[in-house]
């Protein structure tokens, strides 16, 4: 039977990674694992690489994969990579295991293989080879790059990626990282689409705001909005900015010259000014991102906020003396694993993604 991978996310020991194997014996060991377990079914729809250059990331990422594989059967490679100087510094350790989940239909155990690597050395050389040598053939390659890009993010690697998962909210220097991303996309042969978890984090907010404007009364009131405030959790300023930019593009507003990381001067189609402010809140939440949004103007107020349970977004529209209209929108994805799962379920290009970045670049 494949090793039990019921792991505690807090457990950063390497025991959860399964059986240690030498790198040249990985495929044979996996084959032996499956031939010894006729009752478990190996499943794979994609190759999914989780790559981190943070210290001790393996156990944590393996725990995330235990969740993600319940939705996405894959050949998973989880990589902890650290640069080490000198030719003799090259070190590769590897482990194999499987994440098994009972399927809903027949109660069968469906298993995703996981190969964990600890890489120490010259990463631009080590990483592409380690990845390419262990992919399931013919299946697409989804690559979750955690944190900012390093020298390992080079064209040998990126030309083979089909879906690049990133979280731009985690970038320390968004302008530099975005430039790296753009350069990689523009390289000859690059074909990857960008799946940014920031967009996924904002999905419910976009839906909730859209629901507020389903009535002709609120849509007509959009022209009267003259102030927008977005509250966000600590470390989620860029998420809030992304929401502001999405709203700006959707509403047909224009960004004026004055723009900082915490405010934007906008103008509407009729030339009237609109002030947008970003405020950090210190609420503790299970769902970090944008905590509340208000749009106000003459005779109209539209508000979104995460409810007490943290499971829903409440929205409220007030126009004049009409009784308010309220909606609840479920926050389907909050944890990192659920965000990635949801994003992989919607692997299409976000048509507005790069337009949002272009709008934001002067402000960050």
């Amino acid at each position: 039977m494949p090793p039990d991978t019921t792991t505690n996310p807090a457990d950063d020991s390497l025991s959860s990674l399964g059986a240690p194997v030498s790198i040249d014996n990985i495929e044979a060991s996996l084959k032996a694992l499956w031939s010894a377990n006729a009752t478990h079914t190996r499943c794979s729809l994609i190759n999914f690489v989780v790559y981190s250059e943070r210290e001790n990331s393996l156990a944590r990422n393996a725990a995330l994969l235990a969740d993600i594989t319940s939705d996405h059967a894959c050949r998973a490679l989880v990589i902890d990579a650290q640069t080490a100087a000198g030719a003799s510094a090259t070190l590769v350790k590897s482990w194999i295991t499987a994440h098994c989940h009972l399927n809903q239909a027949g109660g069968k155990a469906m298993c995703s293989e996981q190969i964990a690597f600890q890489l120490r050395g010259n990463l631009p050389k080590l990483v592409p080879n380690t990845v390419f040598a262990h992919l399931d053939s013919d299946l697409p390659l989804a690559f979750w790059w955690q944190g900012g890009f390093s020298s390992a993010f080079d064209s040998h690697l990126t030309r083979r990626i089909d879906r690049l998962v990133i979280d731009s909210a985690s970038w320390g220097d968004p302008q530099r990282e975005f430039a790296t991303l753009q350069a990689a996309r523009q390289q000859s042969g690059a074909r990857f689409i960008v799946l940014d978890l920031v967009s996924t984090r904002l999905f419910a907010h976009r839906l909730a705001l859209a629901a507020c404007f389903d009535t002709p009364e609120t849509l007509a009131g959009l022209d009267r909005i003259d102030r927008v405030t977005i509250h966000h959790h600590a470390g989620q300023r860029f998420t809030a900015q992304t929401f502001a930019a999405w709203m700006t593009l959707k509403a047909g507003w224009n960004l004026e010259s004055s723009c900082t990381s915490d405010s934007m001067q906008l103008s509407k189609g009729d030339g009237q000014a609109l002030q947008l402010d970003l405020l950090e809140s210190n609420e503790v939440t299970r769902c970090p991102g944008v905590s509340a949004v208000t749009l106000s103007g003459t005779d109209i107020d539209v508000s979104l906020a995460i409810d007490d349970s943290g499971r829903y977004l409440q929205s409220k529209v007030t126009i004049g003396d009409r009784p308010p209209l309220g909606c609840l929108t479920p926050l389907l994805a909050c944890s990192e694993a659920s965000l990635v799962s949801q994003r992989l379920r919607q692997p299409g290009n976000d048509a507005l993604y790069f337009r949002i970045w272009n709008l934001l670049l002067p402000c960050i």
Partner: protein
Amino acid sequence: MIFDFQWKLGQHCIAPPTMMVGLVASSANSTCTEATPSYWTYMPYSENPFRQQFATRPTPEPCTVVIFGATGDLTHRKLVPALYSIAADGELPPTLKVVGFARREKDDATFRNELEAANRKHSRATHDDALWSTFSESIHYHCSEFQDVEGYRALGKRLDAIDKERGTGNRLFYVASAPEFFDEILENLRTSGLNKAPAGSWARVVVEKPFGTDLPSAQNLNSIVSETFAERDTFRIDHYLGKETAQNIMVLRFANAIFEPLWNNRYIDSVQITCAENLGMEGGRGGYYDKSGALRDMVQNHLLQLLSLVAMEPPTDLSADGVRDEKVKVIRSLRPITMADVAESVVRGQYIEGSVDGKAVPGYREEDRVDPESMTESYVALKIYVDTWRWEGVPFYVRMGKQLPKKATEISVHFRFPPSVLFNSIPMQGDVRGNVLVMRIQPDEGISLRMLSKIPGAALRMEPVKMDFSYSTSFGKASPEAYERLLLDAIAGDATLFARRDEVENAWRFIDQIENAWHNNPSPPPMTTYPAGTWGPQEADEMLERDSRTWRRI
């Protein structure tokens, strides 16, 4: 930031200024509450700039679903569990209401309790008490006889009140009653004016099978429907089309480059479509079935729909009419089976006593509510030709039977043998030289391809092997139920997976000739028999043997 509103899922809450609001739908993409009466109206999503680019398919809009036959099996086993599962997936449109319409007296609470018990058993999504509590708030019961027009007028008033409360006048009427009431329900909808939607809204009708019992009755029903609703607002359900595997036939054929070049009479020898059931007339089914039979109950609708998906030309686009235009061309191209052909091309049969799953079962004529001298077939096998350029000379063997050894609906495409120049001297047992592509519609949904492979060893020996794709092992999650997809599509106004009038009538035209040859023939072909638990009458095997073919082993 927390508003001064008090919100609690599944409970009523107080909104300022001292206005009662009710939670009116479950965890849809948004679940909206508002004051009663409504001060808001809804517009099509396409007019909302914030909605654009959200959806990759038509978006279901807020509406009220009225189910005729609300106390019936279909409502309890399929429709309400499907709506609940859609809600659990967060895809139910906001402010959706369900009104059950039926004859038995009961109140909302009783109706909801009955549905809750059924939902626990039948819904794909796990029953969650909190979600059900919210969802069930939007379910109501309306008691009336189907023949009583006053009951429809009272329904109209109730719907008007709901519309006023919700700010939307969209209505979906789902006719899930016994078929003998279809005409009256539609006529009363027209008489009471419920077929006309308020300005800016829509009124649609979903009609369950059977859509008629022959061509004249289908034409009559169609004319009543078309006097009541426009064709674009009419959704004739064939739940096979809602199955993922049926939808995947078009994807397999037209989204993969390797199959379509081979998909013609140059490379395909024959096609088999099998629908096998390992049940008989349990649960009082005999009463309905004995008036219908395998040909009318399954072949006229489900199996001809599958055949048309396999045989159709590529549509010009994926619009409802783009796809249905091509499907109807196939149905119109079916070579008629005349009185003279019927004995050669069709085998009908009834099971006699036998054994299924280790249990003794009675013969068809001994079943509950079945006429002891019944001439209704529990099994039918047909050889059908599609008279088009592509399919000239390729037989489509279609069979459907009750009390067969296992439950399976499958389509198999049998390719021609390769030229026998290299390996023809190598002995092989049975008819295994040709490649076979199998689409398993249900259960164990998937696709397999049979091909020949060399057995390892010094000698040159070959055996067939299978490449197998299974939905459950590839995608893990259970596929949505067919009714979930079809309900969402009807609410969104997408008729692609519903049968159009001309499809239904042309299918009946084809079937009626066979029925006519059976029942109005001075020397009708015999009613064959087969022991329950076997693969049908010997005559069906002989029909293929005459063509030097055999039924595929399932």
